[in-house]
């Protein structure tokens, strides 16, 4: 995996909640990097894991699969996973795949902290 395949993800912890903020397009090339960083965050077993997608202008089914996998791991470990700040194009793929009914999706990271 070269640098172009890495996705920048910042992590913040607030009162037992972990917030991940990936930045950039998530596709087949970058999904493995996102998976690695989400898995690392999940190993700490936070009560709540917020994934802020406000800086993700594009996501394909590889990215969606990464989030579905994260949700399944979260369920097993008792972590609540929340997606927030989705851009319209990204929201569109969740709606087509009917995953907007499976994930908890809110408007902002503040909304996600309050849920």
């Amino acid at each position: 995996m070269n640098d172009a395949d890495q996705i920048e993800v910042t992590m913040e912890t607030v009162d037992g909640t972990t917030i991940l903020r990936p930045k950039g397009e998530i596709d087949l090339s970058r999904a493995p990097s996102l998976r690695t960083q989400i898995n690392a965050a999940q190993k700490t077993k936070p009560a709540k894991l917020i994934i802020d997608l406000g800086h993700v202008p594009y996501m394909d089914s590889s990215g969606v699969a990464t989030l579905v996998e994260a949700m399944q791991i979260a369920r097993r470990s008792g972590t609540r996973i929340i997606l927030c700040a989705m851009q319209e194009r990204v929201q569109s793929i969740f709606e087509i795949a009917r995953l907007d009914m499976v994930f908890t999706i809110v408007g902002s990271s503040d909304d996600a902290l309050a849920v």
Partner: protein
Amino acid sequence: MPEDAREPDVRLELYSQPRLLAGARALISNIAQRIGFNEILCGQISLAIDEALCNIINHGYERRTDGRIWVGIWALSNDPPGLRIVIEDEARQVDPATIQSRDLDDVRPGGLGVYLIQEIMDQVKYERRPHKGMRLTMVKRLPADADRPAAPAAKLNPEMRSR
């Protein structure tokens, strides 16, 4: 001459490498925008092409990075205007009847690509190429309520044609 009988307006040739997907997406999205598709539909069309290319890379070439992929793009001017996209490869051949989308109630990672392509595009056809590889033909027409450009769908600049 029927629109599907002429040479493509744009032809892109790329290796089966995931890092090249972003360039292919940008090209398709820009052409779709010029034809008059709104931002959401441009994103969905480029997603469908991305998913088709991902399937070729993952399943056809089994992640080999030296496989060849050809993308032909036609700007359709018939009413309503639209796009015809043909993707060809030299990868493993499969029976087109076995290419099916999965049950969405089975929530699991992976397997969404074919479903997304079929949901987004108006026409989708998989077939074997005569000697080796597969061909995927997709058509998307402007919906009646789309944000139409002020001018009729532009014929692409001949300089954009490439082989």
